[in-house]
């Protein structure tokens, strides 16, 4: 079968993500993204995992083949300033859960727009892409 040219976009389920340890999750993301794939995570990374991913990304940057990642996810629900939600969360001890996140190689994925409810990205093919 002839291999099609294009950019791979992979949606990763929460179940699969939960089967990974933090290190495995970060290794998996770096490995896939450095191969030129774009990932959409049903459950994003915790802030601490995000910073670990940034650190590992920096360590892997190669001037000519990998310039880093583009990563965008929604802010945590609890941090939207809603006082009632904050009170309920305090009473019932709701655990913060990371939300949907898109991650891709920085030379392919560009964020066009982002606010609390919308993330708009663009996949750059051809010039600029690997």
């Amino acid at each position, binding site marked *: 079968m002839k291999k099609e040219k294009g950019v791979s976009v992979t949606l990763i389920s929460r179940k699969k993500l939960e089967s990974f340890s933090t290190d495995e999750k970060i290794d998996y993301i770096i490995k896939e993204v450095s191969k030129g794939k774009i990932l959409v995570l049903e459950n994003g990374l*915790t*802030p*601490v995992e*995000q*910073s670990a991913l*940034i*650190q590992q*990304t*920096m*360590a892997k*940057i190669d*001037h000519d083949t990998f*310039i*880093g*990642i*583009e*990563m*965008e*996810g929604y*802010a*945590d629900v609890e*941090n*939207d*300033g809603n006082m009632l939600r904050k009170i309920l969360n305090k009473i019932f001890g709701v655990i913060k859960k990371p939300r949907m996140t898109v991650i891709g190689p*920085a*030379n392919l994925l560009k*964020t066009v*727009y*982002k*606010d*609390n409810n919308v993330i708009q990205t663009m996949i750059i093919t051809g010039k600029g892409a690997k």
Partner: protein
Amino acid sequence: MGVLERFRITRFALWIHRVFGKRHARIGIYGPPNVGKTTLANRMLMDWAGETIGTVSEIPHETRRAKWKSNVKIENGSSSLVIDIVDTPGIATKVDYKEFIEQYGLDPDEAKRRAKEATEGVIEAIRWLESIDGVVLVMDSTENPFTQVNVTILGNLEARNLPVIIAANKIDLEKSSPATLKSAFPQHPVVPISALTGYNLDNLYTTMVKHFGKRRRKRK
């Protein structure tokens, strides 16, 4: 020492004492590249120690190693305290040396060296989160605040329960919109400032006292 300066130092000394309950605290200045972290650090240090900490440049990643000024003595009436101010490299998810060449005219070798050092700086800045007691998070009020870097830094500070104040910098520029930052991060105090001109720096210190004093009382 002028009356205003003496007032500012005393108020800050009280803030440190309220927030950290100790006489030695480490304050990190964090944010993405080119938001004015070093300009603010220089301003703060000029206020408290009469010196600067680093050079500033329009080229991103000018600060590529964390710099700190230890043992800045803050006088508070008859007593005194000592703080460390840490100016951290800008945190980014990508570093492309070609941008330094195409946008800022650096030669390729210099651009590659800068990019390499910048990646090391990002790692170092994140590592410093383990060793600080409070953060002034600097954002560019002319830019969209909903960047992942801002969200990641704030999330980390919240996860570590570190007190944070957002300094909405560059309000001297026409297209600045500190109100956008306030609506983006309603859960944190946002203080519009111009680190370049020094505008509203007194308000930043006053907000520190109010906000962190309240947080400490809540914890008791």
